[in-house]
């Protein structure tokens, strides 16, 4: 008898819980909750890593903060959920998080079969190889028979398989799920090479026992556009996240920084006036406050500031802007028109 009662309770709960699920949009849910939940990488220096005080820092973290600034006018209202490569997509699909800012490569399969939508990339990357100088290898073509460390569930795992297959070179993968364990195995010499996105390799090298002992081979074997991700089926939320990334780039194009944004409010340039909400319109269109872009730039900074702060030449990663420079300076960062 007790069992029967229990079943009825479960059944009723199950029916009730799904009744309200389909209706509310992500923006309303986030506002009602009062905090934005974002999936991030558990630890890649420069992109997403807690510092010694436990405060999350990095390019992906700043992107998440920008979304919070746009939605709440407060960049600190973010809850970070650390996810491994294997966990990240299911976490987004199952609504555990509102958006994923976790160096995730845009691919056709992920946008279709996995039911996800990628916004504008916040970092253009490519896959490379990190190797100890002692091995005396100067090019990826010399990796015949090598043992290669890689993360599971990543595009890098498949790209490496493609690359070695195409060049007819035998190899052996060592696949470990946790970044920390993988790096440990690599530094201990379990593998000859470690393959990942070039930016991550720079991050891993920066935390090596002796960074100068390692080089990144010149070959970049794939395109890895890394972008924030949202679920299929909520166009308004997609627009908000997409145009948040655009706003970061647009601000750099317009020369607006966190330092001069208050002065820029007085600018006579109609483009700047529209962008910062002095001339209202964009905020309403997105379902946000008219000050959304102002809040992003004031609290987080423009794309150039974010890049320099986290991964630029003055950081341990020492990455050049390269592909991530503005289109006007030979890069790929191109904000679509704010009109």
């Amino acid at each position: 008898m007790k069992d029967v009662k229990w079943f009825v309770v479960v059944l009723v709960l199950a029916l009730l819980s799904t009744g309200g699920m389909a209706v509310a949009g992500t923006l309303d849910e986030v506002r009602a909750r009062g905090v934005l939940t974002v999936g991030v990488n558990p630890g890649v220096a420069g992109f997403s890593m807690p510092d010694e005080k436990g405060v999350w820092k990095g390019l992906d973290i700043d992107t998440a903060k920008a979304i919070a600034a746009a939605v709440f006018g407060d960049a600190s209202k973010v809850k970070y959920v650390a996810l491994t490569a294997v966990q990240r997509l299911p976490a987004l699909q199952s609504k555990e998080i509102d958006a994923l800012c976790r160096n995730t490569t845009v691919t056709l399969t992920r946008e279709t079969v996995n039911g996800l939508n990628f916004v504008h990339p916040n970092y253009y990357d490519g896959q490379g190889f990190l190797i100890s100088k002692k091995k005396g290898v100067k090019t990826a073509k010399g990796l015949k028979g090598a043992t290669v460390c890689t993360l599971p569930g990543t595009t890098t795992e498949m790209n490496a398989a493609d690359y070695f297959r195409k060049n007819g070179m035998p190899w052996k993968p060592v696949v470990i799920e946790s970044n920390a364990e993988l790096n440990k195995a690599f530094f201990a010499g379990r593998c000859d090479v470690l393959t990942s996105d070039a930016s991550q390799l720079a991050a891993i090298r920066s935390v090596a026992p002796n960074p100068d002992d390692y080089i990144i081979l010149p070959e970049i074997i794939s395109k890895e556009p890394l972008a924030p991700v949202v679920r299929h089926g909520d166009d308004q939320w997609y627009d908000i996240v997409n145009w948040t990334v655009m706003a970061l780039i647009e601000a750099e194009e317009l020369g607006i920084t966190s330092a001069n944004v208050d002065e820029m409010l007085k600018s006579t340039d109609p483009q700047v006036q529209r962008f910062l909400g002095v001339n209202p319109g964009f905020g309403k269109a997105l379902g946000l406050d008219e000050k959304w872009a102002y809040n992003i730039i004031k609290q987080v900074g423009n794309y150039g500031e974010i890049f320099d702060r986290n991964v630029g030449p003055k950081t341990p990663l020492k990455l050049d802007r390269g592909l991530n420079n503005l289109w006007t300076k030979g890069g790929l960062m191109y904000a679509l028109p704010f009109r």
Partner: protein
Amino acid sequence: MRGFKDSAISEKIPFWLDPRKRAIFFQLLTFCMVGFLAYYLVSNTLINLERQKIASGFGFLHKESSFEIGESLIPYSAASTYTRALLVGALNTVKVAFIGIVITIFLGTIIGVARLSSNWLVSKLAAIFIEVMQDIPVLLQLFFWYALFCETLPSPQEALTPGAGISVCNRGVAFTIPEAHPAHRYMLLAILAGCVIIYLMRRWARKRQEKTGQFFPTFRVGIALLLGLPFVTWLTFGAPLKMDVPVLEGFNFQGGVMVSPEFIALLMGLILYTSAFVAEVVRAGIQSVSKGQKEAAMSIGLRPSLVLNLVILPQALRVIVPPLTSQMLNLTKNSSLAVAIGYPDFVSVANTTINQTGQSIEGVALIMAVYLFFSLSTSAFMNWYNKRVALVER
């Protein structure tokens, strides 16, 4: 007369007061509810997947996997299908679980007996081993053995050679093996034939002993057969002696057989952890046989080895086998921790598959089905064995 009375009573009692009918009613109700719940969950999931445009179904199994797997018992490449990739993973799980179970039972029995030893030092050493291994989580043990392997051993270029034909480095242990030769297949057949002959010989020896009381040394003859038959086969093929020696070529050893550090670390962790539990099971089993049995056996003049084989063990096994089965299942299930140290077991391969295809529900269902199959077949075998050793009650 009685029949009439019964029907009269059942006519009087309304069906909701008849406990038998009521029980049937509630069982039906429960069954319907469980069925409805299952249907609801499945259909709800499918609708939600459809709404989010997430693919469902097992069609992905026939597609090219396009990822590589570190070690495999069957030919596999990135051009193989997901089905084959998953099979490679399942076989890797079977490999580590089977070898692990065999060694664990062997080691566990020795330690369990040592724990009961009258030698103070042996008994205390066994006790320390059991306490330490039982109390450290198996995942930590895996990390420990893996780190030990990777951090302390030299690179392939400076590999250690503890014995002829063996090289130890941080890529694993490379063994020299005899080069492939048709004789090997016939040697394997000779071993199988030896097993059959031993089985028949034991039946014959037992019957003869029951009839005439004469004892036949089956054990010694059996060992001689198992070793002798393959050896004779090997000689008839002209005793091929060519060896496949692992040679350092480029980054790594080529040739021979390479056992990876992931496999060794996983095997070590699982064996040491589980054998501590098995040791306790064996000790409890032996202690469950009352002292009087041993004394009675000795009083009729049986040798100590016969006391153990004919009196103690048959009775102890009844107590040992059921908990031993659950330890074997534990070892098999714990082998899924392999993912932490990069051994490509079934869970690891299935995880990668889930990620590349995005079909987590199907992937997790496959993982559950495969482990259920492993567990059920292990317990089916052990139940059969348990019936054989169980006390025959008359």
